[in-house]
Structure formats: C-alpha cells, structure tokens
C-alpha cells in the first residue's frame, strides 16, 4: 500500500447557532431551504494507472422552495447543482444540474415531475464512501437510477413507504422506465423491495433487510437483472455491518459480490467516520477497499461538510 501523505486540514468549522438549520427563509407560508453536501478526498485509487489524487465528491448545493397552500396541501420545487465534475476535471462542463422538479404534496403523499432520481434508487444497504473497484452499489444503480423526464409519486403511512416512478420515453434517447419501491420500518427491522423495467434493456428486482441492534446495524441486499441479449442474469449482493464505536465515531464493514456477464467479482470495504460533537454536520473519514477486479487496494481519507 502506498504511503499517503494525509494532510488533513482539520479546522473546526464553527458555524453560527443557525448552522444546523437549512432554513434560510420562513414566513407567510413560504419556506426556502438551502442544503449542501461537500466532500473532498485524498485517494489512492485501485486502478494502477491512477496516481494518488485529490478527488471532489458530491459538491452539491440544493435549493428547496415550499409554499403552504392551506388544508394540508403544499407546492414544492427543488433545484440541485453539483460542481464535482468541474472540480475534478477543468475540461469538463461547469456545474451540472442534478435534480430539478416541481410537485404537490397532500398530507403524506407527494407527486413530482422533472429531473430526479427514480424510485428504485432508494434501494440498497451498501455503506461505502466509494464503491470498491469494478463493483456496483446494486443492480438499479448499475442499470438506471435517475432520469430527465420522470413522474414520481411517494406515499408513507405508519412506517410503510411506497414509491413509484415512470420515465417517459423522450427525444433525448433515454428509454422509458418504470420503478416500484416499498419499504417497511418496524421498530428494529427494516425491509424493502424494488422492481424496475427499462424498455428494451432490462428487468431488475431486489430485496433488502436490515436489523438495528442498538450499537450495531447489520444489513443485506440482493438485486438481479435480466438483461436483453445476455444468457445469464447479472446480480449484486451486499452484506454490511455498521457499528457505533463511540457517540462520535462509526465504523462500517461491507462485503460485495457482483456477477456481470457470468464473471464473479468479490469485494470488501471498511471505513471509519468521526463527526465533531459540536457540529455533527462536519465529518472526517477514511476507507480502505479491495476487489478482485482492482489492481491494488483503494485507500482514501476525506472530509465532509453537510448543511
């Protein structure tokens, strides 16, 4: 393993008393929230061709507007920008749009239309900062987890959450896709199921379960895709265990099995995260991972700011 000079600038970002609150404005039924997720890593990539590098991940700014229309009805809109591509490569486009949609919410049911993640993106228990080389998070993330022309409905009641989305086949060449997702939170146990049909491409389905044991959470998921033109199905299996080592420190250990075109890859990862007690939105982390598909271990350390 290459030695990495970890020059982490640990400056306690002393935000004001309002730092944890993402609400910028709230009056007369109008609420404007701004959220962000900024992450930077010093990474020794598992691909031998890549040198140790500073990588920008999730440099997102999210803007949410909500209007209270009365009688439990709300109108809302979201506009999310991400700057990580430009930060990582100056030759690429500037800030790209991650999500942009408008919607209506009545009680615990919401409908939205626009550019967003599809319902099956909710699936999965994987807990790595960066996927081990050559493996995916799950089959839905690999096949399709977002679209530009999506209509999505989300509803929740008494611990059960249901989501369905459909991407319209548009002129941009994206195939039509329909997703279904359901999750049940029952005290210590969470179970979920997902299905996705992408026209002329693949049908995927998946099941997951996780158990909250107090100081530890263990989880597993399995997803499989029947891909047109392939004789064998592709599948992804995740096992994860997350521990609360202290009030501020968490550890996650994961195993991944990824079958693609009949080729089986196994991978593992381990990470540790420290959240500053005064501001839990500030986090330091480190991760190691290895997979059959990589040339060597992947090692990274980084810092994340959320607001």
């Amino acid at each position: 393993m290459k030695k990495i000079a970890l020059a982490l600038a640990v400056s306690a970002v002393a935000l004001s008393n309002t730092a944890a609150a993402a609400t910028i404005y709230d009056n007369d039924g109008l609420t404007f929230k701004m959220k962000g997720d900024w992450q930077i890593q010093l990474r020794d990539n598992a691909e031998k061709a890549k040198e140790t590098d500073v990588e920008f991940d999730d440099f997102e700014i999210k803007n949410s507007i909500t209007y209270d229309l009365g009688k439990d009805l709300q109108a809302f809109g979201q506009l999310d920008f991400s700057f990580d591509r430009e930060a990582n490569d100056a030759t690429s486009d500037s800030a790209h749009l991650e999500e942009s949609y408008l919607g209506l919410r009545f009680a615990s049911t919401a409908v939205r239309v626009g550019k967003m993640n599809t319902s099956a993106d909710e699936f999965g228990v994987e807990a790595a900062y960066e996927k081990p080389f050559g493996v995916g998070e799950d089959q839905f993330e690999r096949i399709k987890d977002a679209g530009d022309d999506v209509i999505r409905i989300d509803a929740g009641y008494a611990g059960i959450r249901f989501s369905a989305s459909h991407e319209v086949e548009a002129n941009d060449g994206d195939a039509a896709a329909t997703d279904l997702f359901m999750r049940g939170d029952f005290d210590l146990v969470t179970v979920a199921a997902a299905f996705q049909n992408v026209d002329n491409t693949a049908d995927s389905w998946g099941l997951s379960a996780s158990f909250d044991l107090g100081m530890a959470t263990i989880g597993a998921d399995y997803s499989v895709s029947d891909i047109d033109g392939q004789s064998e199905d592709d599948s992804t299996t995740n096992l994860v265990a997350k521990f609360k080592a202290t009030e501020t420190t968490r550890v996650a250990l994961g195993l991944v099995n990824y079958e693609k075109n009949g080729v089986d890859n196994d991978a593992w990862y381990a990470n540790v995260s420290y959240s500053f007690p005064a501001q839990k939105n500030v986090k330091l982390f480190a991760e190691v991972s290895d997979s059959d598909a990589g040339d060597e271990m992947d090692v990274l350390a980084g810092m994340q700011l959320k607001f």
Partner: protein
Amino acid sequence: MKRMSLTVIAITLFTLGLMNARLAYADNMLHLSEGISLLAINGKTENVDKGLFNKQSRFSLPKGENQILITLTSEIKKGSDIELETSDPAVITFTVTNQTLTLAAPKILTENAMDTFNRELNWTLTNSDGENVVFKTELLPLKGFRLGIDYNEELKKFNRSKKPAAINLNHNLLPIDSGDPAATEQAVILKMLKHWYNIATPETQSRFLQELKNN
C-alpha cells in the same frame, strides 16, 4: 479575634452556600437522547458549553422550573445519499426536583415525518423511574430570514409573551453555573450572606454590622 470570627462566618457561609449549590445542581440532571441539540438553557445560549470536542448530552440544572431550547437532527436516507434534517427550534418548560430527566424524540426517517414532528412536537420527558414528566412545549416563533438569529433575544421576546411555555426567568434563587467558578461562588456567597442576615435576630444583625465596621 474579630477578624477570625468574621473569617469563620464567611467560611461557614461559603461552605454552606457551596454545599447547597452543589446539592441543588448535582441532583438535577437532564439527559438528551441521540440527535437532540441544546441551544439554550433558561434563556441563555451562553449556558450551553459548545467546546470543539465537547460531547455534552448531560446537563445540570437548577432546582425548580427550567426552560430549554432544542432541536432534533435526524439522518434521512434519500436514494443512495444520507441527508440531515433538523427540526425547528422548540421551547420546552418543565420542573425538576432532585431528579435525572431524559428527553427523547421519536425516530424520524423521512422529511414528511420531520414535518409531522414539527407540528406535533411529540417529545417525551421521563424521570429515572421511566415515568412521564409533565412539560410544556411549542416552537420558538421565528419569521423571515433565519440567518444570524440571536436566540437570546428571541427567547426574551418569547418569555414576555403569554404563551404556555413562557416563564419568568428571574425566579431561580441560585445562579446557573456560568462556567466561571469564581463568579458562581461569589454569587452564592452573596445570596447566603443575605439569607443568614435576614434570619438573624436584630441583636445579631447589629453585632455583625458592628464587626464589619471595625474591620
């Protein structure tokens, strides 16, 4: 001799004052469950220690009626991301008498659940026997821009109102531990000096004043 008498009185009062102060605080503790952040105690943000590495989930409180300003932060899974959602600041008022109280909130897994929590404010406050403790709670009314809010001023406004969770913050006899031991001790000594003087007979009061004059 006179100086020694005065010194003995002062030491006695000081010791009694400190004992009372420690007894008054040590037996009155508030424990915050995971995700709950304390913004102010009894109208003052300065009463909450926000050290860099300080993970305080247990706070000592003066005996009697207390008021805290708190928020709840939960991790919410959105797709493959985890986002942090924080509730609106809530005021909670309760009475503590030689107890350890635990404040908890329901598990919040979705944005909708957080919106519901902001409306229902279904906190739970229990004592060490697991029994529910009565409290009053409501959101701190904030309007307009939320940047650079002065919570001390907002709480002053709130406590001047007739809202159920508003209290008169001057009723506590013993000063809150401000983190400056010298200031706290002197405040306690002054209180105790006044207390003993007021319950002394006129003759004792006269003798005490005479000794002070002579010193």
